[in-house]
């Protein structure tokens, strides 16, 4: 069966993918539909949705909430993907080395990993951004730093079980070099769980980014959903729309990514699904 067929067996995953495509489309077309800076004053402040030409209302400074959501989608997706990419790369390298060589290298790398894991990830991320001064790069770095240990642990486990397989030993008897065995033989066999965990990590990364922005630690020059909620939280009772719509955007995006992640998991590990 093709990947798509297996993926489509999970209805939720297809719905998730549709939502995700919609959000991506929104992010891509933000500049066309909302050509102006989302920070600029667009009209009457505190307009409820549908009034004064605001689709989703405006906030206390008269900024368009809809424009903010569209531009914020770009930020969320970008940071989510970038941070995950960095985390997965670091995690794979650490996990592969630890799992393949074992012994002292394994001990050393895993103790380092545990050191990162003992610090609560969100607080650690706040700390890192606060030290580095808020910007897109620092947020990406902070999220990557708190997310890679999970990947490293996963990859290490896979490497540990795969390195003693006969096909790997066969490569040893051929005289293949370690790097080639790791990258060419073992890694392709453990990519599917990494892809699954990676897709779910994108969702977590978006949540962390929103949290940071909510606390005012986002990049001040870039519109973000978390920032919108943070700006609107004091007006929650008088202008509910300022917080609500970005909140729904976060909810939908994270939900969609999780659904897609689960669908990928089902498609890549079909046996897991049949068991349930």
């Amino acid at each position, binding site marked *: 069966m093709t990947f798509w067929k297996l993926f489509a067996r999970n209805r939720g995953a297809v719905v998730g993918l549709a939502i995700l495509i919609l959000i991506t489309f929104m992010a891509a077309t933000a500049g066309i539909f909302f050509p102006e800076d989302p920070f600029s004053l667009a009209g009457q402040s505190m307009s409820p949705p549908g009034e004064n030409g605001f689709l989703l209302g405006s906030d206390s400074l008269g900024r368009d909430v809809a424009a903010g959501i569209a531009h914020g989608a770009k930020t969320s997706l970008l940071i989510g993907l970038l941070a995950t990419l960095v985390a997965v790369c670091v995690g794979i390298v650490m996990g592969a080395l630890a799992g393949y060589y074992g012994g002292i290298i394994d001990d050393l790398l895993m103790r380092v990993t545990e050191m990162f894991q003992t610090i609560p990830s969100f607080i650690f991320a706040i700390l890192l951004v606060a030290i580095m001064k808020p910007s897109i790069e620092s947020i990406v770095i902070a999220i990557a730093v708190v997310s890679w240990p999970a990947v490293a642990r996963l990859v290490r486990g896979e490497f540990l079980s795969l390195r003693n397989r006969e*096909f790997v030993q066969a490569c040893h*008897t051929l005289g293949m070099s370690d790097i080639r065995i790791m990258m060419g033989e073992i890694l*392709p*066999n453990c990519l599917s769980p990494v892809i699954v965990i990676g897709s779910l990590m994108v969702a977590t990364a978006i949540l962390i980014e929103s949290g940071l922005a909510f606390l005012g630690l986002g990049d001040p020059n870039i519109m973000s959903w978390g920032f919108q909620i943070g700006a609107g939280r004091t007006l929650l009772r008088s202008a509910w729309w300022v917080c609500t719509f970005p909140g729904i955007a976060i909810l939908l995006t994270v939900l969609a990514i999780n659904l897609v992640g689960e669908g990928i998991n089902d498609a890549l590990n079909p046996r897991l699904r049949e068991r349930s």
Partner: protein
Amino acid sequence: MTRLLDITDLHIALPADSQRPYAVQKMELHLEANEILCVVGESGSGKSLTALAVMGLLPKPHVHIAKGSVLFQGEDLTKVSDDRLRQIRGSEISMIFQEPMTALNPVMTIGTQIDEVFRFHDKMPGKERRRRALELLRDVQLPDPEQAIKAYPHELSGGQRQRAMIAMALALDPKILIADEPTTALDVTTQAQVLRLIKEMQAAHGTGVLFITHDFGVVADIADRVAVMQNGLVVETGTTDQVLRTPQHPYTQALIAAVPELTPRPSRARSPEIVMRVNKLEKTYRSGGGLFGGKGRIVHAANDVTFDLARGETLGIVGESGSGKSTVARCIVRLNDAEAGEILLGDTDLRPLGRAAMRPHRSKIQMVFQDPFASLNPRTRIGKIIAQGPIMYGASPEDAKKRTLDLLDIVGLDPRSYDRFPHEFSGGQRQRIGIARALALEPDILVADEPVSALDVSIQAQILNLLDEIRDRMNLSMIFITHDLRVAAQVCDRIAVMQRGEMIEIGPTSTLFASPKETYTRELLAAVPGKDWFLKGSSAQAPAT
């Protein structure tokens, strides 16, 4: 009188996307009290699913009984309620499995597990239950029942675990015992003991035994009647005598013909050229100990192992599991590092070489692995699997491809295999690919570690022939590791017997078979299942029993 077990027109349906619609079709089979019926067939013939169907343990809803009936003393097991089925299981019909380590609960003692059987089915006081459990363990001839009742599964050996399983299965004196390949995971000598035990227990209790196996040797030793299965159909049934002496169905004939004989191959002249010499090889494994002290266990996997290998000869290394035969093989190909001794390839001692220094010598010694499913990278195409060796040693991609296609031809595979992935091939074909990979570097020595033990008998014979042919064609020397003396007899010029890390006897196959010097060698020979049947018209003397 109603029969003990009567299977009529049984159809077991497989999920929609399987290779065939029914795992078992039109099955007619019956079992009387006090007889052993062997169901024989190759993997995928549906023999295990038949057993599960009788027990009501089919993995529903994917696999289910589509049609037919399973009458147990006149009661149709396909129709009874789950409650009734639970009552029957264990007390009336019980089962022993292939791998006792996974069939027993690892965190419960043997005593508790036997006790559970009593508690679920019978009301009796705890003391009585314990007494009965001890009695059972004594009946299955466990050496120290008092100790065994307190032991956890991992503290027993494979044979002892299987005995404990048999004790559990017989706890409530069932009318039917279903045994699904109960001795496949055991060593030959243990296998012989367990088979004898099953036969004794069956005779003592008058149990009907449904014995599933792939090994005609085992059939010859234990069965009263035989049913042969092929692709879900019972192709032949009859008494053991009938089926083994005058098989009617061509498939049965082929299967019996494929059983390797325990007749040594005719000896050939030994070449004077010695390609490898192994001197006093030592390898020990240490386990336990750890950070907080404690006594570590030291196992001598190879102790003072010395042998030499002439050009063009096949040296068999036989022994039971844990005898160190695989360790020796792995030390020779340098997957493991031996601690002392010499591995002389020509004039070079390979043992002390580091990884980089070893690399130029790697191509001279290649290995064929045991498990054809684990030994090929599932994500790599066959062409690349075979060609990557030569490419690494500097062959141009075109040359490597040409060589790969030649090799595919030599091992009897279609050139179109080049672009396929391993999962598209059967076990035997994969083993051919493994052999082609090993040959790609044009080695002088081929180390084959149980290359046929994961394969069905008919395919075993093909692979053994292929190995023989290749050895002659390329003038290779081969080290052939096996636990099966029948296989060793087929391919080996000389045989070395290993026990607890020591090579206790080495000699030409025919000499070794005719007049074994060591008691252990004699025991091994005597334990070969079905040896009395399969010494077909051989000139070799039957080993003393």
